[in-house]
C-alpha cells in the first residue's frame, strides 16, 4: 500500500515550532510510506494541487495530511483526494497544530517528537481505512421557526417566499416580540410599529406560513430532514375562528390586571388583546386573573360576545408536524432590575429599565408618548441613564457586552430631550460602542448638538429621598464624585436569553454557552448553524444584537434552510458505529452511552441497533460495549491497536 504523507507548515504556525524536514526524514526512513512532501500552506490551491498530482503520479492508495485540526480542513482535503479519484475516506488528518505546535510552542524539540508520533499513528490508521460511501437521507421540505419576533418573522417570510411551507410558533398570543414594544428605532428614529406592522400582517396572511401563537414546543424527535415536532397550543378560551375581534368582551370585563405588554405601567383586562395592532387581533383569557376561573362566577364576556366565541371549556391542543429544518429565534429578556441591589432591587417606581422607557415614549403606550414618571405622573426634569447594568460586570453580572445599550440609551436621551426640551438627560457610560452604519453620528448628535450630558463612570448607588432619585456616581474624566438628584432613572439592564430557552434547547438537543445563549457551529464561519445538523439559529437567542443584525442573521438562516431543501436527499457521514450481530448480547450499555439517541435495543432479536442518521460517530458506544460487538467504521479496534503500537 502506497501512502502519501503531506506535511503543512501553516506558515510559521507549525513550521516555526516543529522541525518539519527532520520529521519528514524520520517518516520516510522508518514508516514505509509511498511518498512524503511538505508545503507552506497545504490548504491553498497550489497545496491541494500537490496532493492531487502526487495521487495520480505516484498511484497513492491513501493520504495523510499533517496539518491543523480535522474540524478545520478535513472536508477540504477529502474533497481534494476525491477529485484525484481516491475514496475520500482514505484520507486522514494528523492534527499537528492545535494538538502540537500551538500548545508546545516553547518546547520545539518535544513538539517535533510529538508531531512525529501523531503522524505515525495516522499513517498506521489510514493503512486499514476502508473505502466508504456517504449515507443518503430523505429531506422533508418544510421548516419550523420557533419565536416570532423580528428574527423569527424574517426567517419565516424568507423561507415562505421561496415557496416552502413554514410552521411559525410563538409563545405569546401575538407576534412581533420585543420590537412591538419599542417606540422609535436607532439610528433613523423611525417608528418601530410603522416598520413592523406591515411585516406582521404579511406573516399573518402569508399562504405558506402556518402561524401558531400562544403555543410552545412540546416535544421534538428525529434528525436533520426528518424532525417530528409536537406543538402545544395553549387554551385561549376564545374560539378564534368565530371571534371577529370586536373588543366588546375586553370593554365589559370587570377584572383589571397589570398589562404584561406594558410591563406593568398600565392595566388591562383579564380578557385582552395585548395591543391594538396585535397580529392575530384576537383576545385571550388569562385564567389566573379571570373571575370565572378564580371565583367560579362572572362570565360577562360570554354574555356580551355577539358571536358566541367564548369557550371556558377549551383545553390545550397538541399538533404534530414533520419538518426538515428548525430555526430557533427565541429572542431575549432583560436582566431583572429586581436583582440589582445597588440600584434599589426594583423597589423605586421611578427607576425603570430601557424597555419600560420605550413604553413611556410610545405613542400607543400608557402615557400616549408623553414622558411622565411612573410614581406621580409628573414630567421628569432630570433623567439619569445608566449603561452597563449587569453587562460587562464580571463580579455581579455578566462579562459580555449587551451590544445595543449604547445606541438605545443615546436614542432614549435624544427622544427625551425632543419631548422635554428644558429637561436634562445624563448618561453614565463606560465607553461608547457605536460600531454600525450611521451609529457613531447618531451618538455624536446626542453629545454635541442635543445637550445630553455624558459622564464616563459608574454609578455606585441609587436611592429614593424626598421624592427624588439620588444617584451617586463618578466622572472619571474630571476625577470628581457626582451626585445627581434626578426625577427618574433609566437602567440599561443586560440582555439575557429568553425565559425557557434552556428547556427548549434540551428538547432540541442543541447546546448553549455558559450564559444560555445558543452556541453556533463556528463563531466566524458558521454563525447561523447550531452544532446539530438541520437546526439553525437567529437573533438575540444567539447573542445580543440589534434589529439590522437580527434581520441579517434571520435571512442567512433562511438561506441555509433553503439550501438544505434544495435537494430531496442529503448525505451523512458513513464513519459511524456498526454492530457485529454475532457478538452483541443486547446488554444495552451502548444505549445509555449514546448522547445522540442513536442507539436502541431490538428487544425481539436481543440486539443493539444503530440509527445511522443520528449517529455522529463519537465512539462512546464502542468504549461502553463490553463484548467488542460495537465498532466504528474506520476506527476499528485493530486500527486503534496499530496506532498505539506506532506511538510506543
Amino acid at each position, binding site marked *: 500500500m502506497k501512502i502519501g504523507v503531506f506535511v503543512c507548515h501553516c506558515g510559521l504556525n507549525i513550521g516555526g515550532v516543529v522541525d518539519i524536514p527532520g520529521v519528514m526524514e524520520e517518516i520516510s526512513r522508518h514508516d514505509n510510506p509511498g511518498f512524503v512532501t511538505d508545503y507552506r500552506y497545504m490548504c491553498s490551491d497550489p497545496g491541494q494541487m500537490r496532493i492531487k498530482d502526487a495521487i495520480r503520479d505516484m498511484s497513492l492508495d491513501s493520504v495523510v495530511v499533517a496539518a491543523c485540526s480535522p474540524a478545520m480542513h478535513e472536508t477540504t482535503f477529502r474533497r481534494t483526494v476525491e477529485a484525484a479519484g481516491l475514496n475520500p475516506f482514505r484520507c486522514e488528518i494528523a492534527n499537528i497544530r492545535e494538538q502540537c505546535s500551538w500548545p508546545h510552542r516553547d518546547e520545539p524539540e518535544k513538539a517535533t517528537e510529538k508531531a512525529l508520533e501523531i503522524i505515525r499513528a495516522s499513517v498506521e490508521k489510514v493503512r486499514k481505512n476502508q473505502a466508504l460511501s456517504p449515507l443518503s437521507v430523505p429531506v422533508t421540505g418544510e421548516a419550523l421557526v420557533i419565536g416570532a419576533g423580528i428574527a423569527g418573522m424574517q426567517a419565516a417570510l424568507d423561507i415562505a417566499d421561496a415557496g416552502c411551507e413554514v410552521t411559525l410558533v410563538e409563545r405569546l398570543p401575538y407576534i412581533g416580540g420585543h420590537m412591538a414594544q419599542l417606540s422609535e428605532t436607532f439610528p433613523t428614529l423611525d417608528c418601530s410599529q410603522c416598520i413592523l406592522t406591515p411585516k406582521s400582517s404579511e406573516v399573518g396572511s402569508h399562504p405558506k406560513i402556518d402561524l401558531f401563537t400562544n403555543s410552545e414546543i412540546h416535544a421534538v424527535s428525529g434528525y436533520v430532514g426528518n424532525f417530528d415536532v409536537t406543538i402545544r397550543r395553549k387554551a385561549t378560551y376564545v374560539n378564534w375562528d368565530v371571534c371577529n375581534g370586536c373588543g366588546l368582551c375586553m370593554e365589559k370585563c370587570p377584572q383589571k390586571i397589570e398589562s404584561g405588554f406594558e410591563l406593568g405601567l398600565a392595566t388591562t383586562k383579564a380578557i385582552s388583546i395585548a395591543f391594538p395592532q396585535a397580529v392575530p387581533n384576537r383576545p385571550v383569557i388569562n385564567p389566573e386573573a379571570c373571575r370565572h376561573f378564580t371565583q367560579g362566577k362572572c362570565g360577562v364576556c360570554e354574555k356580551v360576545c355577539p358571536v358566541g366565541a367564548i369557550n371556558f371549556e377549551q383545553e390545550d391542543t397538541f399538533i404534530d408536524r414533520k419538518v426538515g429544518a428548525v430555526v430557533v429565534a427565541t429572542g431575549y429578556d432583560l436582566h431583572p432590575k429586581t436583582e440589582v*441591589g*445597588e440600584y434599589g*432591587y426594583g423597589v423605586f417606581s421611578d427607576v425603570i429599565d430601557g424597555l419600560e422607557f420605550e413604553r413611556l415614549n410610545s405613542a400607543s403606550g400608557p402615557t400616549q408618548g408623553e414622558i411622565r414618571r411612573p410614581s406621580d405622573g409628573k414630567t421628569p426634569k432630570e433623567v439619569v441613564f445608566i449603561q452597563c447594568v449587569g453587562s460587562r460586570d464580571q463580579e455581579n453580572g455578566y462579562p459580555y457586552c449587551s451590544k445595543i445599550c449604547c445606541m438605545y440609551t443615546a436614542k432614549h436621551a435624544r427622544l427625551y430631550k425632543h419631548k422635554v426640551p428644558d429637561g436634562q438627560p445624563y448618561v453614565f457610560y463606560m465607553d461608547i460602542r457605536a460600531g454600525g452604519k450611521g451609529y457613531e453620528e447618531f451618538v455624536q448628535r446626542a453629545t454635541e448638538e442635543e445637550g445630553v450630558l455624558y459622564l464616563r463612570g459608574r454609578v455606585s*448607588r441609587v*436611592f*429614593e*429621598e*424626598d421624592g427624588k432619585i*439620588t444617584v451617586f456616581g463618578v466622572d472619571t474624566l474630571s476625577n470628581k464624585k457626582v451626585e445627581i438628584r434626578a426625577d427618574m432613572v433609566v437602567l440599561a439592564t443586560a440582555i439575557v436569553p429568553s425565559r425557557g430557552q434552556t428547556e427548549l434547547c434540551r428538547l432540541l438537543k442543541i447546546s448553549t454557552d455558559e450564559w444560555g445563549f445558543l452556541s453556533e457551529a463556528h463563531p466566524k464561519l458558521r454563525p447561523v448553524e447550531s452544532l446539530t445538523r438541520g437546526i439553525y439559529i437567529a437573533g438575540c437567542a444567539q447573542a445580543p444584537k440589534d434589529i439590522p443584525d437580527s434581520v441579517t442573521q434571520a435571512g442567512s438562516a433562511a438561506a441555509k434552510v433553503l439550501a438544505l431543501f434544495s435537494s430531496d436527499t442529503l448525505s451523512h457521514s458513513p464513519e459511524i458505529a456498526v454492530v457485529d450481530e454475532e457478538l452483541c448480547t443486547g446488554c444495552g450499555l451502548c444505549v445509555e452511552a449514546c448522547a445522540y439517541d442513536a442507539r436502541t435495543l431490538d428487544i425481539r432479536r436481543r440486539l443493539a441497533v444503530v440509527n445511522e442518521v443520528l449517529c455522529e460517530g463519537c465512539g462512546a458506544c464502542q468504549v461502553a460495549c463490553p463484548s467488542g460487538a460495537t465498532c466504528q467504521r474506520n476506527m476499528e479496534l485493530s486500527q486503534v491497536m496499530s496506532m498505539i503500537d506506532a506511538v510506543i
Partner: protein
Amino acid sequence: MVYSYFPGCTLRAKAKGFDSSALASCKVLGVYLEELEEWQCCGATFPLQIDNSFPLVSPARTLAAAKKAGRKLTTLCSACYNVLKRTNHVLREDLDKRNKVCTFIEEDYFGDLEILHLLEILRDEIGFASLAEKIVKPFSGFPVAAYYGCLLLRPPEEVGFDDPEAPRILEDLLFALGCSPVDHPYKTECCGSYVVLQPGEPTASPSRLIVESAKSRGARAIVTSCPLCQFNLDYVQSGDVERGENAVPVVYFTQLLAMALGFGEEVLQFDGHLVPPGPVFRSAGVGGCEGAT
C-alpha cells in the same frame, strides 16, 4: 455555648461600653465569651497591596492562638472582624502567603478557624425569635436606624453574612428588641473613616449625610457595630449638642440589647458618648435606661 472572644484594642479604650454590654448580654443569653489568652491588635486595616504580607502577621498570630484554643472565634468591632476574616481567607486560599506568614510567626496555621461576628451568633445560634422572648424591657416601637458602614459585609465573597447592598440583620435584631427599624439610603455608605480627623468643616462629611438622612426619616437613635463609625457619627453632631440642637445618639447594637435585657449604666457605659443617649431614651421612656446618663 462557649466562643473564643477577640475584643480588639478599641473595645478596651474608647468603646468600653461595646465590650461590657456584649459580655453582660451574652451571659444572660447563655453564650460565654472566653477572651483569648493571647491577642494583639488585629492590624486595623486589611492590606490591599498584594505584595505586602507584613500587615497579615499580627492578625495571623491571633488566629493561630485562637485555633489552639479550639473554639470558634467571635469579635464585635466591624474592622477587627473584617481584618481577621479576610486574613483567615488569605491564609486558607493563598499558599504562598500562608507559607511566608506562618514561617515568620513560627506557627502551623491553615486558615481553618471559623470566625463569627456576634451578630451571626445572635441570628443563627440563638435566633432572634428566642432572643425576643428573653427581653424584659422592650423598646415599644422606638424608632432606630441601623447603620452598617462599609466593613461589616464587604467583600461579600469573603466576609458577607448578609446582602451587602440591602442588609437586614441589624433591622431584624432591632425588631426583636421591640424597636421600629428606620430604613435609610446611607446605611451601607462609608462614614468617612479617618477623613474626619482632617481639619475642616465636619458638616460636609459623609457622616453628616448619614445622620441627617436617618434623622429626616424619623430615627431617634442610630445603631452600629463599628467603633470608628460610632465615633464619626457621634462627633459630627458635637456642635449640635453644644448649640442645644436636636441630635441623635449613636450606640452599639449590644448596648440596645443590654438595655432591653435590663442592664444599667455600669454595663452600658454611655459616659464617653458625645451625644448623651440617656436623656433621649429616658424621655421616650424606653429600654429601661434608669440610671443612664
